[in-house]
Structures are given as structure tokens and as C-alpha cells.
């Protein structure tokens, strides 16, 4: 029995679990603010393979807690998926919802994990999914379970199974990293002595477009993550930067300087067919497609100071979107297209702001001073951004209502340029 257990422990370690305390330069997430009315949820220890079940449930709990929408309640003991939960006891513990589960070894050596989510007040089953997975897929399975619970309870898709991209700068070295949304399983897609900026996920999550300075000037690349193969998407005379994918994933809006100052163009994702989108005598940059593809939002100093504008993809005149203040940059549309995150300068402080596009009402979401590069979670609930704490670059996330706050940092390195990947289908 003992060697068997040990083997599983190793498997769990291979999956990069916290309980193995493997030293890695991984993002650590710290919760610094939570929602006002958090739903009390009990996630019981799953039954079955103890080491595996513990590892699973700890990740599920951490995911739900990090979202800031749930308050974890002690379930009082393990609970199998096929057992009736002790509803009266759970009620007295203050839980509104309970999840139990079981982990069993399947015939082929994989695991089968079954989950049951129940409403404590109504004593009713909310769902009971099952997952077949290997030991290496433990964390991924836990994220799937957390996504299931999140969606059942909030009506919105969970984003625990998504990935994020970001750039880590250590002395003389830049790494473009891909990690799970909780910072685990980080992998470098590119390591370079020259800067890397502006990573952008293709809508299907298979590719990243980014700007690398490895040729001593900014060049836009498209990088296929599974194969590691990449191609140049824009390398014209001058600078090439700010790639943004069209919603169908076929084109990139880019900023080129081949005809003078920074201007907006669209190229096919393979780098062919460059066409100009907008014309100004000053700077146009940071294009971002609206989710329906109708408009391209961008930053321009055509009015004298950097402000956000939008232009219809079909052509026509650019229309100014921001008016308050003298520095509003980096537009990022929410997945539903109804609001826009951007960076506003207020008395020398660069802060993350959110505008409701219909009412133009704007809310400053942070109290920091060097916010940059906002990126929406694909369910629109959180905004990931770069900021600085104690002179070091960190990533932070804030809910679109400003209440839930997280900090993601890497020891002894600068983290910047975050981009939240799409939902996993």
C-alpha cells in the first residue's frame, strides 16, 4: 500500500501542487479585498484516494475563495458524491451550498472524480458532474470543478480553467510566460535578452501575438503555443507594435510607422495584405477591436493630448470617447462590449478606470499610481492589470465593481504586460 501512496504523491508533485512546496518562480496570489455579500459555501473533503482528493479540494477551495464571491465554510468532515449531505448540521454552520465528491481509480489507471453540488436550504441537488482524468490533470480537473460550481451559483461562466500571459523581467532577461489563471504551471513561451511587450491572445487561445525587440527594433510576431512555431506578422521599416486580434481571429490591427508616425493598419494574421485603417498627423496607437468587430478603439493625440477614440471598421471619421483629463490611454473593451477599461492620469497618478459606454459614466477602480495594461477576464468579472508596489512590477486584479482585489507577484522579478486568455471550450 505504502509504495502505491508514494507513487501518487509523486504524481501529485509532477502536477506542481503546493503541498510538494517545489521552489519555482511562480506567481503567488494574495487576496487584498473581497465582495460585500459573499455566498457561504462548504466544500467538503472528497472521499476516496485521500492524497488525490485533498489536492483536488484544496485547489477548488482556493479558486472559489480567490474569486471574492464566496465565503468558505467548514463542512465538518468528508462527504461523498452519493451521500446525503448533513443539511441540518450545514445549516447550523451557516452554509447555503455544499459540494461533496469522490475520487476513484478507473480501470485504465486514470481517476474518476464525481461531484455533487447541493442547495442546503432547499435540500436539493444543483448538479452532479463526473470527470475522468490522469494524475497530471489534477489541477486542471479541480479548476473545471470550480468553474462548474461558479457557473451554477452565479450564472456566469467561471474562468478558473483559463490561462494568462505576462512578461517577467529579471536582470538582462525577458520571459514571455503562460500560466494557469491562479499563477500555477508557468511556462516560458519565449526568453530573450531584449524586451517583449503587448502579448495578445488569439480568440481561440491557440496563439499569442506580441512585440519583441530581439531585432533591435519592435517587430510583431504571431506565436503558436502548442508547436512553439512563430512567424513575423509585421516587420516594416520603422517600428511595428500593438497587435490586436479581430474577433474572428483572421486579422490583426497593428501600429506601423512605415509612412511616418505611429498609425493604425490591419494585416492578415499571416502578415499579408496590409491596409491602413485611420489617418492622423500625430500618434494613433493601442488599437483594440470591439467584441462585435464593428469598431476599433484606439489612443490618439490628434486632439492635442492622448485620448481614446473609436473608428468604424467600415470607415468614416474617428469619434472621441474620453473627454475628462489630459491623459486617457489603453482602451480595453469588456467581453459584452458594454464597458471599457482604460488608464487615466489623475494628478500625476496613472489609474485603472472603467467607463460605461452607454452613459459615459467613469469609475476609478484603484488607488495605485502606476497602473498599466488592463485585461478583462473572459467573463468580464475581473480586470487584470500591471502596477508597481515598492518599486517592483506586480500584477493585480480588481472586480469591475472595484470590491474584489488580488495581487499576483513573482519573487525578485518584475512582472508586467498581463493578458487574460479566452474561455476554455
Amino acid at each position, binding site marked *: 500500500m505504502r509504495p502505491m501512496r508514494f507513487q501518487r504523491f509523486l504524481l501529485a508533485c509532477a502536477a506542481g501542487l503546493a503541498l510538494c512546496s517545489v521552489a519555482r518562480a511562480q506567481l503567488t496570489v494574495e487576496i487584498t479585498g473581497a465582495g460585500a455579500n459573499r455566498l457561504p459555501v462548504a466544500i467538503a473533503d472528497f472521499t476516496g484516494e485521500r492524497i488525490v482528493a485533498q489536492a483536488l479540494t484544496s485547489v477548488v477551495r482556493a479558486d472559489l475563495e480567490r474569486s471574492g464571491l464566496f465565503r468558505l465554510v467548514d463542512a465538518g468532515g468528508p462527504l461523498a458524491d452519493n451521500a446525503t449531505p448533513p443539511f441540518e448540521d450545514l445549516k447550523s454552520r451557516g452554509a447555503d451550498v455544499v459540494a461533496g465528491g469522490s475520487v476513484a481509480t478507473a480501470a485504465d489507471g486514470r481517476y474518476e472524480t464525481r461531484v455533487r453540488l447541493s442547495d442546503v436550504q432547499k435540500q436539493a441537488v444543483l448538479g452532479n458532474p463526473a470527470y475522468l482524468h490522469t494524475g497530471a490533470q489534477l489541477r486542471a480537473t479541480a479548476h473545471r470543478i470550480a468553474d462548474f460550481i461558479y457557473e451554477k451559483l452565479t450564472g456566469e461562466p467561471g474562468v478558473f480553467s483559463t490561462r494568462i500571459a505576462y512578461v517577467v523581467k529579471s536582470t538582462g532577461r525577458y520571459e514571455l510566460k503562460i500560466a494557469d489563471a491562479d499563477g500555477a504551471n508557468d511556462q516560458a513561451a519565449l526568453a530573450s535578452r531584449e*524586451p517583449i*511587450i*503587448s502579448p495578445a491572445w488569439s480568440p481561440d487561445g491557440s496563439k499569442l501575438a506580441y512585440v519583441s*525587440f530581439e531585432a*533591435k*527594433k*519592435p517587430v510583431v510576431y504571431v506565436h503558436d503555443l502548442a508547436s512553439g512555431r512563430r512567424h513575423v506578422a509585421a516587420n516594416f*521599416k*520603422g*517600428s511595428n*507594435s*500593438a497587435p490586436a486580434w479581430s474577433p474572428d481571429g483572421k486579422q490583426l490591427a497593428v*501600429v506601423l*510607422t512605415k509612412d*511616418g*508616425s*505611429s498609425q493604425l493598419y490591419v494585416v492578415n494574421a499571416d502578415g499579408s495584405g496590409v491596409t491602413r485603417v485611420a489617418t492622423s498627423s*500625430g*500618434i*494613433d*496607437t*493601442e488599437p483594440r477591436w470591439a467584441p462585435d468587430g464593428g469598431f476599433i478603439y484606439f*489612443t490618439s493625440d490628434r486632439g492635442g493630448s*492622448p485620448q481614446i477614440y473609436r473608428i468604424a471598421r467600415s470607415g468614416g471619421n474617428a469619434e472621441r470617447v474620453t473627454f475628462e483629463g489630459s*491623459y486617457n*490611454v*489603453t482602451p480595453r473593451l469588456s467581453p459584452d462590449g458594454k464597458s471599457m477599461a482604460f*488608464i487615466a*492620469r489623475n494628478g500625476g497618478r*496613472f489609474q485603472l478606470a472603467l467607463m460605461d459606454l452607454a452613459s459615459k459614466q467613469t469609475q476609478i477602480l484603484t488607488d495605485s499610481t*502606476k497602473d*498599466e*495594461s488592463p485585461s478583462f477576464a473572459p467573463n468580464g468579472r475581473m480586470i487584470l492589470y500591471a502596477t508597481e508596489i515598492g*518599486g517592483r512590477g506586480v500584477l493585480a486584479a480588481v472586480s469591475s465593481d472595484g470590491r474584489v482585489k488580488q495581487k499576483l507577484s513573482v519573487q525578485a522579478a518584475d512582472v*508586467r*504586460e498581463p493578458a487574460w486568455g479566452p474561455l476554455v471550450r
Partner: protein
Amino acid sequence: MRALISLPIAALLLAACGSQPPAPEQNPAGVESRSPGAVKVETPPVAQVKPQQFDPGSIAALKDPKSPLSKRSIYFDYDSYVVKDEFQSLLTAHGKFLAANPKMKMLIQGNADERGSREYNLALGQKRAEAVRKALALTGAREEQIEAVSLGEEKPACTESSEECWAKNRRGDMLYSGEF
């Protein structure tokens, strides 16, 4: 930065001194100044053309601390890409040098301080590089000799968060063939 670029320059000088014929005494850019309307006689080239035929006298000036050509950086005000008057004579010297050495190429790198958006700062650095390029073109540098690019806020000369430091980072750098 200076220390880093001195090596390729030295190599360039050695190559130039070792194998070049004496520099023509007339303006070496004279090949382009044909009288208008003159019929161009097509003669297959016989003369040996080496990739870099620079005037060794002028090349030395690039490193001579007494020559204005040894100065390669100009500085800008916050959120501005206007070349200040104090740098006009420096840009004129470089423009004339490029005109006199048509095979010499230059990469102009525009830079910005760290405040604000990386991409906007990249565009700002491009505007600064472009301002330098235009000034050089006005004094004789040819379009194909110069490329203006931006490094944005990514390659600061000074890394502290102070006005003194930021001023050093709002910069246009001129790099000659062999230096980039």
C-alpha cells in the same frame, strides 16, 4: 552604452584604414550631383566597390571627443517631440556627415521615460526618432541612409524614478553602421 559601441567602431576603423585607397579630395557625395538634363552614360562598373568606403578622416571624428559627431544623443521635454534649439547644430553636423558619407547608415532610436502606457511611449519615442530623422534629412542625409525606430520606455539610460533620471530617458540616440 559608449563602452559597448566602441568595439565595433574600432573594428570598422581598422577595416577602413587597412584596405581603403586614400579618400578622394573632392566631396565624396559628388557622384549624385549631376548637372540637370545630362545623359547618363551606362558604363558597367569596373571599380572595386567595398561595402564600406568611408572617409577615414571623418570616421575618426565619430569618436573624437572634440568633434560634435562624438555626441549621439539629444534630449526632449516631457510628452514632447520637438527638437530643442540647443540640439540643432549637433543634428546639422550629423546630417552633413551622412551627406558626405552616402554609404554610411544610421539607426535612430527614440526613447521615452517610464510614465504612462508602454505602447503610447513607444509611439512617443517614434515621434522623437522621426523628428531627428527629419532634421538630418534637411541637412543632406538620404532617405535610404536612415531608419527611425522606437524603443519606447524599454531601454532606459537611467532607472530611478526621478525627474533628473526621466530627462535622460526622453532621448533620441543616433547609431552608425557597425553600432547596431
